[in-house]
């Protein structure tokens, strides 16, 4: 779960990590209410789950209340990379002396946390790695609760961080590492990490990505989960414990399956035949006919979907429950073409149920055959 910037600042604050303080607002009226609390000049930042905000005009400054209102309204009416801006974060503008980069992330190769620091910042870390490798240090961290002195000393020596900043930097790193561990982060990034005119380090922007599987340990964060999701079908699916995955905006096929691997395989085969999947839904294991009917209704609500491919290899999931789900949802999905492949537990019972249904169900035997049928139906 990727936190919005303002939420990341809240986490930083809770750990007393120097960062931007400010207020959020979702409407022009809310901005008005804040006016009295602010010290000008201020910065207004769009709260969206994507990078490149600055270039898109999502970060602006204001010298007074009038300008604040104009700029905020402007931003709140924006879309950035197709994402509507629901919220702005407003705080005092900071005079930046230097921009740096700091992050902790998980290295999947070594299965250890990795610290990345650069005395260059404000741009994408891959750009820094390419253009200024000398100013960047990347170091694996021994698993354990503490960040050893020698790890930080190496980073300091490698990047040549100026002596006056080193003590602050050490504390900063230790705090961010504690956040990384305690909050179950996949990523805890500060970019830019700035030095202000007074020589103080501060997080001017923050990205925190928290492991979805660990959200049960962070209920105070979990409740903000839906805030960052704009797709109503994703939310609806989540409420039934399904995973709805948007694939290609331009596609017309929905894939429903009972496992991540099978979904990927289905998409791969369909794409290989020149067709396009627009969304997929993972039922997980052991879904009942009632829940399967809900799943069908959810994908059917996507106006781009004209074809639904149900591909089931049932183990815990029973084919008769799948068939029952199709039957129960028929009136809601009747406008869609249905290609169904059932394999595994209670396959024959499931097929028998489906055969009793009047309508144009296409029953196929095998994944490959299913994709073939899809292609034939589209004259591909």
């Amino acid at each position: 779960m990727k936190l919005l910037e303002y939420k990341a600042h809240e986490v930083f604050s809770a750990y007393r990590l120097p960062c931007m303080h400010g207020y959020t607002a979702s409407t022009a009226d809310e901005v008005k209410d804040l006016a009295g609390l602010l010290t000008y000049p201020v910065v207004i930042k769009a709260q969206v789950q994507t990078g490149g905000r600055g270039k898109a005009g999502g970060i602006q400054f204001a010298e007074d209340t009038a300008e604040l209102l104009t700029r905020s309204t402007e931003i709140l009416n924006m879309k950035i990379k197709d994402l509507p801006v629901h919220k702005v974060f407003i705080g005092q503008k900071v005079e930046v002396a230097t921009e740096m980069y700091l992050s902790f992330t998980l290295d999947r190769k070594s299965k250890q946390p990795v610290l990345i620091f650069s005395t260059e910042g404000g741009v994408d870390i891959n750009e820094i790695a390419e253009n200024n490798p000398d100013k960047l240090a990347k170091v694996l961290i021994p698993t354990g609760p503490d960040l050893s002195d020698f790890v930080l000393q190496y980073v300091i020596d490698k990047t040549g961080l100026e002596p006056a900043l080193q003590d602050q930097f050490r504390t900063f790193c230790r705090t961010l590492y504690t956040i990384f561990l305690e909050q179950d982060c996949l990523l805890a990034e500060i970019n830019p990490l700035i030095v202000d005119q007074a020589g103080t380090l501060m997080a001017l922007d923050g990205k925190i990505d928290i492991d979805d599987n660990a959200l049960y340990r962070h209920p105070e964060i979990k409740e903000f989960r839906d805030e960052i999701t704009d797709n109503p079908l994703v939310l609806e699916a989540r409420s039934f414990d399904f995973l709805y995955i948007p694939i290609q905006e331009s596609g017309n096929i929905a894939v429903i399956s009972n496992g991540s691997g099978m979904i990927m395989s289905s998409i791969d085969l369909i794409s290989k035949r020149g067709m396009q999947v627009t969304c997929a839904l993972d039922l997980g294991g052991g879904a009942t006919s009632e829940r399967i009917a809900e799943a069908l209704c959810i994908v059917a609500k996507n106006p781009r979907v004209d074809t639904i491919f149900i591909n089931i290899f049932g183990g815990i999931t029973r084919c008769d429950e799948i068939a029952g789900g199709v039957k129960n949802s028929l009136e809601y999905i009747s406008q869609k073409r249905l290609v169904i492949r059932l394999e595994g537990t209670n396959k024959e019972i499931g097929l028998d149920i489906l055969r009793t249904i009047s309508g144009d169900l296409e029953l196929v035997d095998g994944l490959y055959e299913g994709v073939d049928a899809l292609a034939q139906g589209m004259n591909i």
Partner: protein
Amino acid sequence: MSFFIDTDTRLIVQGITGREGTFHTEQMLAYGTQVVAGVTPGKGGTEVLGIPVYNTVREAQERHDANATVLFVPPRFLYGAAYEAIMTGIPLIMTIAEGTPVHDMMRLHHLAKEQGVRLIGPNSFGVISPGKAKAGFMAHRIFAEGRVGVMSRSATNCYETVYLMKRNGIGQSTVVGVGGDMIPGSTFADILPFFEADEQTDIIVLIGEIGGSEEEIAAQYIQEHITKPVIALIAGKNAPKDTSMGHAGAIVSPNGEGSAESKETALRTAGVHIAESTEDILRLIKKLL
């Protein structure tokens, strides 16, 4: 003699008193697996399906000379249960749960290495040596005994593959669910040497997917150490970037790390036969047999 589980495997089921634990214990027993004990803290002294239940793994292990354990415990209890099994020194620990926090797995992965025990999973169907024994939740009737070794991050892709094989008269030596999480207890490269050494295995099938770099690491290991033919399928070629495809581990990062192309290229360079689909795996096996 299969290398992970076999007719002489003496299995503990941690979480045996839970709904899933009991159900799959019954299935494992039906398949002929020697389930010798169950463990559920607080339920010591009871029985499930005639199998004695203990409070601790050590007691179960000592009393029944157990040499493997399978964990049917919810993800939030996985860390504790696996930690206990590792520290008790059970040589083979298979974890099933989907949804384990990645920081927990990070610690368990290193701990198992330190203690010299083998940890499989989580988010895995388990391990089966068809015709001999199984530990996990796989639908065993779709497997058949034979000479192809299979390891897979995905359960469904694996099922599809082995069932295709079975219907074509081809069986498996051992099938290992590596699991779909970001950090597996054992990686493809960790398991490859066992297939290489296994006399029952003639061909190795690796079913990978996008995300991480385990397939690339496996490719390097294959190039240097594996003499048997290897077939690989990488699922998720057409998955969008920066989007989890259901498995926590199946995600291509925004900068393209973990892409199917990178994996296929590495494997191809190592002399691995790349399959385009599960059907294609079958075709390649037939060609190589």
